């Protein structure tokens, strides 16, 4: 069964979650009393998702078994729409491109999606929007899979936008909730996410249009070949690459378009795990990787990617140091790691970037799900209200520590291998970027273990009162009284006193994800001769397939040492689970800068939007609309009224004036006839 696969089976990977979404959505057409049980809907969704996952595995096997493992197995294009105007012919195609990169992404996406859907049965139990949640999750998965499978820019862009839409729908899932003090409301966060990524998407769209006018094709393979052969001018290639990167920067939360990701944590935690750790934010990285030959063809674009990636990694790591909210720490960590991936791509390390993407997907998803488990037990995400949870939630604790170690880059866990490869690639390319990456590694280890110590060690500080467990009502920080739903029956009603471990549906995915978090690094280990790397490299033309750099013991050791130092420093400040030395005292000005997110939100919202756009452009537009447009319309009405007021005076009611007009008119007509007859 791993010999070959036909096109329909691959399409099925895409279509099964879509069917799931449509079927769940269909249940809203049925009147409420006879609707199916929500639990059965989620089961249906999980089953379809599992089918998709198995097919993805089969696809991976087929690609691995190809003549050259990872070689592209493209499937024909289908014409969706064809427009001809003169000698310009526009085809909107749909097609699949199946190579190593695609296969890896398929497996990652379906695996994480499946585990998240499984987990959500416990986390979202009792929420009145339960079916809607699963419908959106399935739709999102479909969009992500479509994005990955696309062989042309248009199909990719279409799914890109769909992914953004689903992100909006899912972040704002609890749209009725108001904003908690100090945070944004889910509805505002959803809008922010959509709009900020939109800003990047403008660049992306322009890039697509630009490349079409020059090459008249949307097909990625053709674009890659054209770019590599430099058949179009260099500045066009650079512009195209930069435009695409703008879109990637939006979706992958690169500086300065990263501001939406922390606020996106207002959505349900499984959503954060799926979308904002493993898949959607990885779409940007995937996009750059897909078009890697184009970037290789343009020096400037590569430099921009690398520098932005490095800046993102640094800035986000600094902000993660000072966050109080556990999910926020993870969010900034995600931004930082995405910066890492972009940095890798920017220095030419395609394999390193994708490798890190895969590893990061697994352990970050696990960390997020773990934070959800913590919330389930304590009803809060505020680390200052947690503590000592390792005694009460051992499985969550163990998996969380494994994830943190992997993220920090402690060998031989998976994170170490991918981070090391990025560091090596950076070392050979630009020492400055290397130094930045190393600094980030230190900070990563520090802030992750700060979180670990505050959350799991020391004495339990009471959490948040209000319902203890039972699905949606437990998420005191997340949802509100709007969802005061009775317990799904999972366990006994609240003992707010002491938290305990989450149910099986929730810790099982954590345990499952721990396995790749530990082991997935080995697929590209140097002593196995980088099988993963070869696999991925098949997706780019021959000329770009570099041999990986040899394993550099110096770099490996120094990065590991730094990681350990970071953990030690965290232990110093936070051992015993208490804040022994608050960072706010250690470096006050930095603390203020970091905790206010570099005042970027203020810049965007008050200065740019509020000031320039609002007062300037939009006020002018509003004036124009009110005065000119409305004035014209009202003017017509006023003119009509005025004219009619004048003409109304003919209706005097006096028969004499009527008689006058009558005879006068008759006389005029006769006169007129007279005069014309006389000629």
């Amino acid at each position, binding site marked *: 069964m791993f010999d070959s696969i036909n096109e329909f089976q691959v399409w099925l990977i895409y279509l099964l979650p879509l069917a799931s979404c449509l079927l769940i959505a269909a249940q809203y057409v049925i009147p409420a009393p006879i609707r199916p049980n929500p639990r059965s809907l989620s089961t249906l969704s999980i089953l379809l998702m599992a089918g998709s996952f198995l097919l993805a595995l089969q696809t991976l096997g087929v690609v691995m078994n190809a003549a050259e493992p990872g070689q592209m197995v493209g499937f024909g294009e289908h014409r969706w729409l064809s427009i001809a105007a003169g000698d310009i012919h526009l085809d909107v195609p749909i097609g699949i491109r199946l190579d190593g990169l695609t296969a890896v992404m398929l497996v990652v996406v379906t695996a994480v999606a499946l585990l998240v859907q499984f987990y959500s049965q416990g986390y979202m139990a009792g929420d009145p929007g339960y079916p809607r949640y699963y419908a959106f999750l399935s739709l999102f998965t479909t969009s992500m899979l479509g994005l990955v499978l696309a062989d042309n820019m248009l199909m990719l862009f279409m799914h890109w936008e769909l992914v953004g839409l689903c992100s909006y729908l899912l972040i704002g899932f609890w749209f009725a909730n108001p904003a908690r003090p100090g945070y944004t409301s889910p509805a505002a966060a959803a809008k922010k996410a959509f709009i900020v990524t939109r800003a990047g998407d403008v660049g992306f769209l322009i890039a697509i249009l630009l490349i079409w006018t020059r090459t008249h094709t949307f097909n990625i393979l053709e674009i890659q070949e054209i770019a590599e052969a430099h058949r179009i001018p260099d500045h066009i290639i650079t512009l195209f690459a930069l435009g695409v990167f703008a879109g990637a920067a939006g979706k992958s939360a690169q500086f300065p378009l990263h501001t939406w990701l922390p606020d996106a944590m207002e959505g349900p935690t499984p959503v954060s795990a799926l979308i904002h750790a493993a898949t959607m934010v990885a779409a940007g990285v995937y996009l750059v990787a897909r078009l890697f030959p184009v970037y290789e063809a343009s020096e400037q674009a590569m430099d921009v990617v690398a520098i932005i990636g490095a800046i993102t990694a640094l800035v986000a790591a600094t902000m993660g140091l000072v966050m109080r909210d556990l999910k926020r720490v993870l969010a900034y960590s995600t931004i930082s790691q995405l910066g890492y991936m972009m940095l890798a791509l920017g220095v030419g390390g395609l394999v390193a970037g994708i490798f890190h993407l895969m590893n990061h997907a697994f352990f970050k998803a696990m960390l997020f799900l773990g934070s959800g488990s913590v919330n389930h037990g304590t009803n809060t995400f505020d680390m200052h209200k947690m503590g000592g949870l390792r005694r009460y939630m051992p499985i969550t604790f163990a998996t969380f520590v494994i994830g943190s170690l992997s993220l920090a880059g402690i060998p031989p866990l998976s994170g170490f291998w991918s981070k090391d490869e990025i560091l090596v690639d950076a070392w050979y390319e630009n020492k400055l970027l290397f130094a930045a990456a190393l600094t980030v590694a230190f900070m990563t280890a520090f802030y992750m273990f700060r979180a670990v110590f505050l959350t799991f060690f020391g004495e339990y500080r009471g959490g948040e009162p209000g319902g203890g467990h039972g699905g949606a009502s437990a998420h005191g920080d997340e949802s509100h009284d709007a969802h005061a739903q009775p317990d799904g029956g999972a366990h006994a009603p609240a003992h707010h006193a002491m938290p305990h471990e989450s149910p099986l549906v929730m810790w099982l995915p954590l345990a499952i994800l721990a396995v790749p978090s530990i082991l997935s690094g080995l697929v590209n280990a140097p002593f196995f001769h980088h099988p993963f790397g070869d696999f991925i490299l098949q997706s780019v033309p021959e000329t770009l397939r570099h041999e990986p750099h040899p394993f550099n013991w110096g770099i490996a050791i120094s990065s590991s040492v730094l990681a350990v130092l970071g953990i030690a420093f965290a232990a110093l400040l936070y051992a015993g689970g208490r804040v022994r030395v608050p960072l706010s005292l250690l470096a006050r000005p930095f603390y203020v800068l970091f905790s206010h997110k570099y005042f970027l939100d203020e810049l965007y919202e008050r200065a740019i939007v509020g000031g320039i756009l609002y007062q300037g452009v939009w006020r002018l537009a509003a004036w124009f609309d009110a005065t000119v447009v409305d004035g014209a319309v009202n003017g017509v009405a006023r003119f009509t009224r005025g004219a009619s007021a004048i003409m109304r005076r003919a209706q*005097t*009611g*006096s*028969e*004499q004036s009527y*008689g*006058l007009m009558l*005879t006068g008119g008759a006389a005029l007509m006769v006169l007129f006839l007279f005069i014309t007859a006389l000629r």
Partner: protein
Amino acid sequence: MSVSLEHYLVVSAVLFGIGLWIALAKRNAIIILMGIELMLNAVNLTLVAFNRFVTLADGRPALAGHVFVIFVITVAAAEAAVALALAVSVYRTRSTVDIEQIDLLKR
């Protein structure tokens, strides 16, 4: 100088014009009616004048014009009666026959 058809026609036209003027320019409804009667009379004069000076086609009696005038007089008298009755009736409700003040159908 001999008097011919044109003379009578001109007189008739002048009388018609004066009658029209009265009908258009006077305030009292009864005076307006008088103007209308004057106009009708001018027409009568025209008819009789034509009858006097123009030979009629065969088959018609020689005094067709006079007969027409008889009928005009009849109808004019009937119309005058009804119109004046109307004026009186309006006077009963509005206490005026000033047409400037009778310009609404509503009370």
